[in-house]
C-alpha cells in the first residue's frame, strides 16, 4: 500500500466527471456499467497508485458488477474516489470501496430513474412539444436547455458532493430533494400537456384538424378524445396498437368522405 500517496486534486475529479459521460459505452447485460465505472475512475487510480501492480489490482476491483442510473453514478464515482484515497493514504485502512458501491447503486438507481427519466425528461418534452405545436421552430433547443441545465449541472456537482460527503446519501438528499423536485416537474408536465389539449384550435397548420367546428367544441372534443385514449391505455392497450387503430379509423373516415 502506498502510504505517501498524493491526495486527489480538483483536476482529477474533473477528469472523472468528463469520463462519466462515457460510463455506458460498453453497456452489456452481463456486466452493465462495470467497465465504464473502472474507465471513469482511471484518473483517480493513476494518481493514487503509481505502483503498477497496485494500480492493476484496484482497476480490476472496479470491474466487478455495477449498475445504477448513469447520471447519479457521478455521486458513486466521487464517493469511490474518496474511499480509494482513504485506502491509499491509510486514513481509513478498512475502506471497503466495493461494499460502498454495492450499497449505493440500487437506491441511487431507483432515485435517478424516477427523477431523470420519470419526471425531468417528461417535463422538458412537454414544454418542447407544447412550444412546437404553437409553431415555434426552437422547440428542440428549449428541450435541450431545460434538460441539460439540470443534467450536466447535477452530474458535475455530484462528483464533488460524493467525494466530500464520502457517499453520504442523507447529505445528498438534504442538498437535493429529488423526490420533491420530481413531484414539481410532474405537476408542471401535467399542466402543460393539459394546455396542449386545450389549445387544440391554435395548433400549427400541420396539426390542425380539418373540420369546421367552433373552437370551444373542438377543444371539448379534443379533451374527450384524450380522456378516451387515457382510459384505453389504462385498460392495457399499447400506444402502438392505438396508432394502428387510429390509422384504420382515419382511413375509414377518409373513404367515407369525412376527411
Amino acid at each position, binding site marked *: 500500500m502506498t502510504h505517501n500517496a498524493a491526495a486527489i486534486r480538483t483536476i482529477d475529479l474533473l477528469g472523472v466527471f468528463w469520463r462519466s459521460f462515457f460510463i455506458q*459505452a460498453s453497456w*452489456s447485460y452481463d456486466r452493465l456499467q462495470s467497465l465504464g465505472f473502472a474507465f471513469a475512475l482511471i484518473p483517480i487510480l493513476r494518481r493514487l497508485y503509481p505502483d503498477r501492480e497496485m494500480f492493476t489490482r484496484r482497476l480490476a476491483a472496479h470491474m466487478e458488477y455495477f449498475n445504477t442510473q448513469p447520471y447519479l453514478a457521478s455521486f458513486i464515482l466521487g464517493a469511490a474516489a474518496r474511499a480509494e484515497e482513504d485506502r491509499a493514504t491509510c486514513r481509513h485502512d478498512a475502506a471497503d470501496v466495493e461494499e460502498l458501491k454495492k450499497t449505493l447503486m440500487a437506491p441511487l438507481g431507483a432515485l435517478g430513474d424516477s427523477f431523470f427519466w420519470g419526471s425531468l425528461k417528461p417535463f422538458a*418534452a412537454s414544454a*418542447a412539444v407544447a412550444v412546437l*405545436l404553437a409553431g415555434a421552430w426552437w422547440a428542440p433547443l428549449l428541450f435541450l436547455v431545460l434538460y441539460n441545465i439540470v443534467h450536466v449541472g447535477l452530474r458535475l456537482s455530484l462528483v464533488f458532493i460524493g467525494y466530500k460527503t464520502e457517499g453520504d446519501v442523507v447529505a445528498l438528499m438534504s442538498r437535493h430533494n429529488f423526490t420533491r423536485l420530481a413531484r414539481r416537474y410532474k405537476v408542471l408536465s401535467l399542466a402543460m400537456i393539459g394546455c396542449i389539449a386545450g389549445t387544440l384550435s391554435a395548433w400549427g397548420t400541420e396539426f390542425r384538424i380539418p373540420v369546421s367546428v367552433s373552437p370551444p367544441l373542438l*377543444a371539448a372534443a379534443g379533451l374527450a378524445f384524450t380522456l378516451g385514449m387515457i382510459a384505453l391505455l389504462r385498460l392495457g392497450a399499447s*400506444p402502438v396498437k392505438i396508432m*394502428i387503430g387510429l390509422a384504420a379509423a*382515419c382511413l375509414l373516415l377518409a373513404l367515407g368522405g369525412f*376527411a
Partner: protein
Amino acid sequence: MTLFDTHMIMQVLFAALIGGIIGLDRTALGQFMISQPVVAGPLTGWLLGDVTAGLVIGGTLELIWVLDMPIGTFVPADATVAAVAATAIAALGSTTPGQLPVIGFCLLLTVAMVPVTMFADHLMRQRNAQIPELALSPSGGPTESSVTVWHLAGLIAFFLKAFLLCLALIPAGLLLVSGFLALPDAVHRAMSLFVTFLPLLGVASVARKLSIYTLDRTLLIGFLIGAVSVQMFHVPELAAIMLAAGGGWMGMRVHDA
C-alpha cells in the same frame, strides 16, 4: 428516374450516418438527449432539407415514447432510430418538403420499426458482454490502455447498430413510400388526418404514466387555462403555456400549504 440513383444512395448513407452518430447519445455517450425524437427528428430533417417533417415526426413520437424508460436491464423501443429513419424517409421520399400524407405514413411505419430496433439492441448488448473479458490484458489483469480501448470500442458497436438499422430501414421505407404515393387520394387524406390525432395520443400517453387518475386535476386545470386564455382572451399560445405551467405550480403550492 430510378428510385435509387447515385444521389439517393448518397443521401441514404448520409441519413444512416446521422442516425449512427445521434444514436450514440441514446445510451453510450453523454445522454444529453440529442437522441430524443423531439431533437433527433428536426436535426435530421434540417440536415436533409425538410425541417417540417422532422418537427412533426419528432414532436409526435416524443410524447408517445418519452416515458418508455430504460430501467435496470430493460431496453425500451429505440425511438431515436425510429425518429431519424421516419424523418429521413419522409424527407427523401416526398415530392415536396413537408408533405403531410407522407409524414403520416412514415409515422405509421415507425410502428413496424419498434420490434426491429428492440431486437437489434438486445443482440448488440448480448455481444457487448465479451468486452470486459477482452479488456483483461494477456497477462491476466487489466491495464489502463486495455480498459480504455475496449471500453471505447463499445461506442463502435452502438454506432454500428443505429447506422445499420437506418441503412436497412430507410431504403425499405422509401420503397413503401413510392408505393404509397401511387395510392388513391382518400388514403393520403387519411394519413394527413392521422397526423392531427397523434399529439393527443401523446398527451394521453404522458398523462397515463404521470398520474394515476384518468381525470387528473392538474391536467384539467392546464386544459381549462389553455382553452379559456386562447379562445376567450386570444392570448398567444406560448403565453397560454406559461399561464398553464404557472397555474399548475400555484395549484401545487396551495395544495401543499
